[in-house]
């Protein structure tokens, strides 16, 4: 694995067979970007990147992944919690340049207050990248009328034998669920916490190390309880 800096952008190059696991937790207002901007993946390499954006953090996250060797596998996922005036921009370019690579993206976020979220996710499958599997999902919960989420999932596919999908949703907390929980004595506040936790929890499943996963879960839960 090699790290380099090009035009202010940190590049990590994974040699064939390398694997990389990174968790980035953005907790402080000063953390406005990721320390990695570009990932180049060799044959059979594996990358697993999790990004958690905590309340109070405005950031511009830009990640480009170039899959240059066959059999590379990349998974990028994240949670963003934006209860106030945050401005969060996430942009992922997933470039499938060669055959037999797979990628998964899952971003889930909660926007309240007058926060603003922009999600741009692009999957590009080159003409030669047959047998590509590429999936991308972005789901958002809006807590207020004044928060704004724009999500633009994009697929550009130039090969014909691929499995690709993308999906994006923007929704609100379901009131039927809330009434059901309240009718069992769960307070409205706690019902909302359960809903928000269950909404973001699929992302935790992507964090392989149990100890790290628990730490992230517990910190996220604390943040959600304060929303």
């Amino acid at each position, binding site marked *: 694995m090699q790290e380099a800096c090009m035009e202010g952008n940190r590049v990590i190059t994974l040699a064939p067979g390398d694997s990389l696991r990174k968790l980035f937790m953005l907790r402080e207002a000063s953390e406005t970007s990721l320390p990695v901007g570009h990932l180049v993946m060799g044959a059979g390499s594996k990358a697993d990147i999790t990004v958690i954006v905590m309340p109070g953090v405005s950031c511009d996250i830009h990640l480009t992944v170039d899959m240059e060797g066959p059999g590379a596998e990349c998974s990028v996922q994240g949670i963003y919690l934006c209860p106030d005036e945050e401005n969060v921009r996430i942009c992922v370019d997933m470039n499938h340049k060669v055959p037999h690579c797979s990628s998964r993206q899952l971003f889930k976020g909660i926007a309240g207050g007058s926060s603003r979220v922009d999600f741009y996710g692009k999957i590009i499958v080159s003409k030669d990248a047959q047998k590509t599997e590429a999936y991308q999902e972005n789901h958002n919960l809006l807590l207020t009328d004044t928060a704004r989420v724009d999500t633009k999932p994009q697929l550009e596919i130039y090969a014909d034998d691929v499995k690709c999908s993308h999906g994006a949703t923007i929704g609100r907390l379901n009131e*039927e*669920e809330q*009434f*059901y*929980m*309240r*009718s*069992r*004595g*769960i*307070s*409205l506040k*706690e019902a909302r916490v*359960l*809903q928000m*936790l*269950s*909404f973001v*929890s*699929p992302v935790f499943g992507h964090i392989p190390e149990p100890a790290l996963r628990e730490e992230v879960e517990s910190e996220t839960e604390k943040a959600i309880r304060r929303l």
Partner: protein
Amino acid sequence: MSDILLEIKGLRASIDDKEILKGVDLVIRKGEIHAIMGPNGAGKSTLSAVLAGRENYTVTGGSVTFMGKDLLAMSPEERSWAGIFLSFQYPVEIPGVSITNFMKTAVNAHREAKGLEPLKAGDFLKMMREKMAFVQMKPEFSKREVNVGFSGGEKKRNEIFQMAMLDPALSILDETDSGLDVDALRIVANGVNALHTPEKSAIVITHYQRLLDYIVPDAVHVLKDGRIVRSAGKELVAEIEEKGYDSIN
């Protein structure tokens, strides 16, 4: 002390400016089981929703007193803590929330409202196992997401399981028999009967006689067009079955 548990006086309620309940009066004493029957659209489900505190209905008149307190001033969760339980006609699916987590949160909220400490994990699991066995739910269900992918019968058994966990003073069973086959109906009815004590009351809302073959009511009321038009003993069930709702006014 009064043995009146619930007193409904002149209750009127509407949804989207359409009046559904047009003056309902009902008194339920401790230990009594009341059946509310009526044709579709009579307001049966509206009555149960208003009692449980559903916010999309507007109460436009009348009063509801539960254990001496103004029920209509309470939030849905406060009503639950006070001892009201609604078994939903259409139980809601809650993706991502396990039955264990859901019930632990609910039971501990009830305990907190009573000033008690949260239940110890071991005691809670023991209680879950007992109550699940009681409605013949397999232990694996505790890990499942609430009602997600459940069959009709499983959903209704899950309602009665929750009722057993929360031990309410007044259970309102809204069309619990709808969508149930005979075996599931028997399990549900046996559950309700086993939970019934001289201190506990129930309102059984149903369109048909068949649930009342298993849960025998002390009183039967016919709700038509937003009003209770007839109240009698359990013999009224047979009359309805024979003559239909049209003849009852």
